[in-house]
């Protein structure tokens, strides 16, 4: 352990330290002071974390006895996570104010959840990943139920907690099975555990997969892998583990919902990407493919049909997140092919970034249009919005078009990338089913657009005071368009790096 190690793990450490500092500052100062200062401090730490990630550059480096690995992909995701945290903290000031919720704890939880997500993102060892995912999830449970005065929020928190705890157990069980199977296989075949690596290290697993004949199809490993994949998919809100997602997003206040929806996806899909890269080209039989295809298609269908007839826009976004999770899983599926792997990883990375921006923006609009911190949740509240508040309507319209994947928004390019990777991996019929799902989803988003622009209403002008959410929403909408038109220019340089530096594979063990 040296400075390099600390630097590599610096982004989550800064976030966590930030969480503690914000908490203590809140404790030490009078309530009225903390509003701006706390936000300022939290954002400062987010920026510090981003800078720390940025200075790592795109090349691969491992740290903490190969417990973590940082490369372009991870740097991108860490910066994204820090940005999401910062934006969420900015956007939720109104809600905190109008509901008299404890602010210091809120900011601390957001920072710590981000820290957990970052640990998950950068971990190379599944044990670290588990700790990271738990930090993130526990913070999520609390955030989902943060507005205790409201039954829906409390219910969201409770449901999320129950399901999440259950899934964590499955995740741990899966990791244990992988540990056992890898250990047994390596011992039985006389393979040495590389110095400083553990049996749960992805590199070790990769070594076992690629060097032990028949290991990829051994039932112990497959069961473990499927449990791992399944539970990570739950954390990302993919069907059939999606049941809580709409409830949670509806129950939680809008900025929190945006935070939950994006951070969980970013983190879970990144570690899945890493896990899938070692499965690529390995003889794992059809099991994992079947599971992944099934999950992807199911969530695309379920998400899109579920979104089609919602009365609550946050539920709609919840189902939409399920559907988009499905598309991302399709990209992951493509990353299982050795040929299409690079393209798939680029596509998935881009998809995640774009999805995060769009979703944060959408929920910010919901908060923006809310009154007294109460979200504008009912879709009927959007009737005739184009006449009342054209700016908000256009902003939300942009997000909806992006979610449905219409060209000139970033949503189109993301879907394009995923489909290209998928088709080059040979998943033609999968793509066709996914396209049908998209068409269904189109209707869902269009309904809201139609309510906003095409239907007259007698509702009064809503005068919102939530300037922060407005700022977030409008900048996100701008990003959606800019990235839709000039993606290469708008993205961070490290995104390019993530394309050039593939994640760690088994070859580097030797």
């Amino acid at each position: 352990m040296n400075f390099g190690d600390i630097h590599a793990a610096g982004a989550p450490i800064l976030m966590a330290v930030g969480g503690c500092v914000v908490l203590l500052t809140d404790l030490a100062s009078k309530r009225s002071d903390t509003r701006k200062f706390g936000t300022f401090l939290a954002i400062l730490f987010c920026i510090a974390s981003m800078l720390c990630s940025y200075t790592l550059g795109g090349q691969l480096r491992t740290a903490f006895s190969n417990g973590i690995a940082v490369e372009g992909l991870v740097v991108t995701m860490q910066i994204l996570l820090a940005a999401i945290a910062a934006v969420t903290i900015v956007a939720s000031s109104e809600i905190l104010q109008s509901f008299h919720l404890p602010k210091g704890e809120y900011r601390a939880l957001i920072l710590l959840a981000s820290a957990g997500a970052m640990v998950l993102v950068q971990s190379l060892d599944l044990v670290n990943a588990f700790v990271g995912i738990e930090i993130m999830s526990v913070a999520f449970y609390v955030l989902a139920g943060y507005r205790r005065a409201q039954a829906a929020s409390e219910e969201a928190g409770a449901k999320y907690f129950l399901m999440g705890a259950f899934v964590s157990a499955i995740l741990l069980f899966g990791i244990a099975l992988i540990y056992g199977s890898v250990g047994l296989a390596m011992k039985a075949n006389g393979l040495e555990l590389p110095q400083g690596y553990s049996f749960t290290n992805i590199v070790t697993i990769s070594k076992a997969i690629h060097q032990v004949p028949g290991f990829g199809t051994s039932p112990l490993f497959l069961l473990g892998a499927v449990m791992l994949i399944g539970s990570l998919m739950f954390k990302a809100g993919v069907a059939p583990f999606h049941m809580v997602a709409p409830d949670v997003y509806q129950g939680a206040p809008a900025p929190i919902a945006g935070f939950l929806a994006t951070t969980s996806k970013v983190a879970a899909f990144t570690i899945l990407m890493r896990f899938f890269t070692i499965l690529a080209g390995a003889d794992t039989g059809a099991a994992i493919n079947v599971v992944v295809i099934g999950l992807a298609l199911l969530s695309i269908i379920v998400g899109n049909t579920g979104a089609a007839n919602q009365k609550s826009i946050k539920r709609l976004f919840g189902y939409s997140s399920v559907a988009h999770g499905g598309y991302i899983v399709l990209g992951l599926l493509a990353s299982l092919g050795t040929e299409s792997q690079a393209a798939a990883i680029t596509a998935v990375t881009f998809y995640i970034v774009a999805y995060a921006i769009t979703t944060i923006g959408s929920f910010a609009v919901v908060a923006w249009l809310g009154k007294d911190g109460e979200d504008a949740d009912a879709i009927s509240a959007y009737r005739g919005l184009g006449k009342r508040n054209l700016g908000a309507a256009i902003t939300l319209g942009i997000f909806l078009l992006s979610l449905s994947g219409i060209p000139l928004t970033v949503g189109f390019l993301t879907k394009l990338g995923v489909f290209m990777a998928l088709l080059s991996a040979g998943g033609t019929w999968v793509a066709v089913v996914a396209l049908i799902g998209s068409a269904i989803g189109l209707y869902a988003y269009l309904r809201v657009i139609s309510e906003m622009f095409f239907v007259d209403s007698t509702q009064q002008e809503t005068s919102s005071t939530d300037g922060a959410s407005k700022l977030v929403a409008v900048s996100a909408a701008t990003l959606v368009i800019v990235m839709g038109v000039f993606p290469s220019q708008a993205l961070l340089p490290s995104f390019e790096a993530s394309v050039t530096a593939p994640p760690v594979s088994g070859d580097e063990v030797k």
Partner: protein
Amino acid sequence: MNELILVIVALPLIAAVIASLVHEKSAKSISIIGSAIACLLSILGITTGGTIDRGFHHVFNAPWLPKLGLMFSFGLDGMSSLLVLLTTFLTVIAVIVIPAPKNAVRAYYLSILVAGALTNVAFASLNILLFYIAFEAALIPVLIAIGMFGGGDRSKAAIQFFVFTVIGSLLLLSAIIGLRIATGTFDYLTLKDLVAAGAVDPSLLRWFAIASFIAFATKAAVVPLHAWLGRAYINTPTGMLLLLSGAMAKLGVYGLIRFTLPLGGDFAESLVPLIVTLGAVSVVYGAFVAAAQTDIKAVIAFSSISHMGYIVIGAVVGDDAARSGSVLQMLNHGITTGALFICCDFISRYRGSRQVTALGGIWSDSPLFSRLLLLFTFSSVALPLTNGFVGEFLILLGAFHKFPYQTAIASAGAIGSAVYMLWMIQRSIYGGSKSDASKVISLGVSERSVLLALALMIIGIGVAPSPLLAIASDNGHKVGAAMQPEVK
């Protein structure tokens, strides 16, 4: 000069942005200026050359997203330059002659100008992904125009229109991606060469043919895929309807000629009888449905199905004369139907109704307008000496010796169209007014000059079609050379 098409596209967009920023009063004039200059420039597109590559002139290439294979890749041939001209022209008259809705002037002009520009991108694009993006993105302004400024049933119409066309184009997208993965390029000309050389997997081409046919047929409202058209056309505000029916629907036929047939391989050829049959069915079906309408806008809308049926037949039939007729007819249909829709808009604006049962007496009240309307109707039913006759005649002529039965049925449709159009005119123009609120349709200078210009064009093309036909047929020959359809 190669940047010409960029200028043609960019000018309306710039005008649109400026118009949406300035005061409402000056929005219209700015829009007119922008689109008019674009229209004049697109005439240059026909008359001038520039870089020539495999039959296309004004070829222009610039990277957009090189990693995805997405390029700003433009080129014009006879067909596309005519269609670009048509689009810019329709944009101009749409802006000039149709007043914007009062509450959202800027949004209205914005949507029209953007729709026109994107349609032009689609027509001029030589990169199929770029084509696709423009093809689909152009739907958004239409969607907004229908939804925000449309008729009573606008919400449903907008959603129906959008969902139908997007589903079609999603299929197209999947096929395009498939081509890209198989060949590594989105470049149209390269793809065409590769397909012609037989270097692409036939099953993929089959999928491309099916998917693109569905996408384009939906756009062109060929019969089983026409369901969106009625409600959409009736509820679309007239200004946008000019573009939608006059230019965008042509994207469907254009796509069939440009993409489905050359890139669809052998399977696309084997689809031709089916397409022709569907075209013939469209002709007859459109005529029947139009005959049953009492709303004159609906009559014109459904007559569009009928006319598009001819155009589709001519486009795919594999005969040079028919194809150049088809291209010409696209132009004609844009002009004629546009003119009819404008008249329809005047009628409903001044008389307060579009129902034939509530009209009548216009002939005596507004003689100039009525005579022009009659001329447009003649053009629509393809009387000789009007433009419609030339195109329709060429199509039927070309198609007849290959698909005699289908052509015969389609010809019967021509008679039908005469029946319902004239019947409609007779009932709505002649006789006494059937409603109390009869008002004189008084045309302003600009409106009068636009209608007169349209009339002149109709007669001009009808009398001397050869210059345009030369451009169109030149194109038809070149495009046709790629596929050599020899149907026995």
